[in-house]
């Protein structure tokens, strides 16, 4: 089965929020105060030998998504075609169960429309053979997307080339996130691991 996901090279992320937030919000008409991704700043160590890096977190397109499991109407579903978790906005009743279930704070509630909103890796652009907004705009060239189950995909090759430096977010909830992070220069600190 295909599993599309976002892969981020954290050594390339310069924390500017231009691609993962501003471009994403413009492309997807996201309202003020909402975002499909959150930028986590990781710091450790004492001045002047401290470390700092950024982790942009959007939907991790989990293999066993908690949001899908808790959705009372079936509005939140995982597609067989690309493995992406979608929300059928007609069927969504805005109960926000998915938001509460998501271990990565990756779901947004759209107050105006009273429906949930999340990263679907810009499916409308992928349909036109274009890249997601964050991927094409990210000034650091840090964000990649593709089928992590296809060993021939660009992202799989990238991950293979960085073996030993690939991380996923905390899986204590057992959701098996598909998103991957590459980090060579710093120590991996999971923002969701308490």
């Amino acid at each position: 089965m295909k599993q599309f996901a976002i892969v981020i090279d954290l050594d390339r992320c310069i924390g500017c929020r231009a691609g993962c937030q501003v471009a994403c919000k413009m492309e997807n008409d996201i309202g003020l105060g909402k975002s499909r991704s959150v930028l986590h700043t990781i710091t450790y160590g004492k001045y002047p030998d401290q470390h700092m890096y950024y982790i942009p977190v959007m939907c991790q397109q989990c293999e066993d998504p908690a949001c899908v499991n808790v959705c009372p109407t079936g509005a939140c579903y995982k597609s067989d075609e690309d493995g992406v978790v979608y929300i059928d906005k007609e069927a969504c009743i805005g109960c926000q169960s998915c938001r509460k279930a998501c271990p990565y704070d990756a779901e947004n509630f759209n107050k105006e429309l009273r429906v949930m909103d999340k990263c679907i890796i810009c499916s409308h652009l992928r349909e036109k053979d274009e890249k997601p907004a964050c991927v094409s705009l990210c000034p650091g060239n840090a964000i990649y997307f593709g089928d992590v189950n296809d060993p021939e995909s660009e992202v799989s090759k990238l991950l293979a080339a960085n073996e030993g430096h690939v991380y996923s977010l905390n899986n204590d909830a057992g959701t098996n996130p598909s998103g991957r992070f590459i980090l060579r220069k710093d120590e991996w600190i999971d923002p969701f691991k308490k």
Partner: protein
Amino acid sequence: MENIFEKINITNLQDAIGDWTAFSACEPYEVDLDGEEQIITTCCRACIANCGVKAHVKNGRVIKLEGNPDDPMSQGKLCSKGLSGIAALYHPNRNKYPLIRVGERGSGKWRRISWDQAMDVIGNKLMQVRKDYGAETVFCTTGGGGNPAIWSISRFANIFGTPNWFEPGCAQCYLPRVSACNMIYGGQDTSIADSKAKDLYDADNCPTKTLVLWGTDPSNSCTASGGRMVNELRARGTKTVVIDPRFTPDAAKADVWLPIRPGTDVALMLCWMNYIIENKKYDAEFVLKWTNLPYLVDLDTKYCLRAKDADGNEKTGPDGFMVFDKKTNSIQELSYPWDDSLDVDIFGEYEIDGKLYKTAGQILKERVAEFTLERTGEICCLEPERIKKALDLYLAEKPSAICLGVATDQTPNSFQAAHAADMIDMLVGNIEKPGTSLQNFPTSAVLHGATNPVPMAPTKLPPEQLPKRLGGVEHKGLGMWHAGQPAAVLDAILTGKPYKPRVWIDRSGNKMAVLGDGNKWEKAIHELDFIIHMYMYPTSFSAYADVLLPITEWLETNLIVEICNTLVARQRVAHVWETKDETVVWSNMAKKCAQLGHEGCQKAFDAEYMGSDLPYWEDETELFDTVLKPINMNWEEFTKAGYYEFMPKDEWKTYDTYMQTGNDGKLKGFNTPSKKLELYCDRLITLARTGKPYLPFPMPPASKDYDPLPYYMEPFEGPVNDVETTKEYPLTMTNGRVPFFHHSTLRNIPRLREMYPVPEIWINTDKAAELGIESGKWVWVESKRGKVRAKAVATENIGPNTVWMERFWFPETLNTETHGWKESNVSVLAKSEGPYNDILGTYTLRAYQVKVYNADSAPEGIWTEPADFKKWLPGGKF
């Protein structure tokens, strides 16, 4: 103050009196309703980079911006500032029509007038003041973010007859780096944010081993162009050294970070030179043959010793410099470029006929000797081992490159920092090689200084006006851009000496947010008779204006832009309201003055008289048609093509230009009178005494000569020089960019303000604990000159004795007593008093003392929640 408005007869006008928002009901007037979505190629100007943009336009409205992958500098990327172009264009609080003040200054009461009426008011006022007090009492300013028509301001000033224009970018930002590089090298400077260091952008072919980012943070300041480029180099294995008091994104990714004490950069630069000389890490062959360090210096005159010609006059040009030949134990005249029969040392002192001579290299060696690793560590608050680690990385393998940022331009040691930084690269031979930042790639020769199509027309300033330039005699380096000194203008307004400036014409983001010591400027403003502000939207400065002129946003602007080996069209993709291109507004003002009898302005429309300075234009495209003639295109053809490659990339990337053979059959050398790199720049003495090479005729000497070599100047208000002040104000202030704003711009963009709603002040974690300050709480930040509030961030990302804060103003409190600039504007704390940089008149915007203590509350009326910014959303999709 004279009431100018009584004389104005305003008829047939919409009776719209009120604040700026009164006009927001109108719709854009140029609408193409055929419904086809067009993609128009243009380039951004949300900062001073020019990132390639593909603008999607439908029904006359811009609906989407994409990066242009063909742009060699941004390669398809845009930053959050650039992406805000649509929100800026359709902002409900744009300046939409010319407005004239009808209430008290600062009351926010305005009346709409036509452009013709605005020009009538302005022209009559300018001519009256010129008649009553002299043209020099009018001064013009620009700056504050991507000012596309920078030379238009200088041009208008010259033609109107005032020697006084300035932008903070002269003395405080960039001119130090431009002028130092121009004096000692004649090639391009290394500023990443100013789109220089062009060789580094071709990352796949860039062999830079170590890149030193000195006082620059491209990830923040020019994310999509320079920030992207540095990131690509890092990904390909280039090592980086970051020298910055603040742990920036680039510092976090650096191999060595040097958290230097603000304002001490020149000490560190002298230390690097000392280390390079002591450890013989310089490129001896290059330094001997291509710099002036082996030349003998007359210690009395401080000039390089010159041979005399048959008439007994000192030789000029590249020949006739004197060196000491060890073979013959005598002084010998050197023929350009070099004489292999001579045996010459770079360092040495020689007594000849009872008189002591030193090589320029020897003087440098003695100058830098005290700056050992240990001593410099003490000055700069750095561990000596850490300095050495950075140096060893820089020196390990060539090519390396230093890119100097704006940090050093904001202290009085500005010119010397730029001079010294270039010298380091030159000593080790990091110049005009693949992968170095110092390069002399060809330019198109279409634009002036490769930056702007508008000729500055400096020779059109009447000769009797030049000596009246405020600060111009003391700080003659400003002559490179034909500018005055901001602090001298301020002083003249407040003291009336040597004369009182009366009219201020400004095109800036927000002068109140960026000028040092804003409280003093506010006092000065109340002394002025008349103030004109032209900009895209109202800023704090507008509150003090008498006339407001609506100016085009970059998406409405036409301009010819040079990017690497191409000329690119920034072209108008939409147009709203009655905004005008400022290149035209300055021309319109000159035209009105011409009609009212100004002889200089009348002649400025005469093609024959103007010659290469070109006659004024009705429309900017008229100018562009003329300027584009060398490439056999007119503006319309050029915009259809979108860009023009003036030279193939491989040919354009020309290295070792000094080794090319010139028309005289000799090696071309560098673009200096000696054709060598003039590290020992005795021409600075001449500059101080006469104004040469920048001024058209000699001026009286400055009060002291400028030093031919860089020297260290301890921060005047700091822990070493001012112990008393430091007791009360123990923390040293530094500034530096966040990725969401450029200078004072874009604080009115909802999607940027929701990410960075209020200014932060960074304070070291331990220091914050000591002071009882908590992250997220409001604090007062106070200097001897004023106090403002900011939100505290306790962090390891700043040293224990330093704080970081960036300029800020609140458009939402524009119509209150603060006019948005008094609450949280770090520039209020900065200094406008001396000491100034001797050559350029730079004052102190960074590296002064403050104290930080808890505040009870946030400033009144400011917006902090995302929903607050809804009022600034344009209608429809953006």
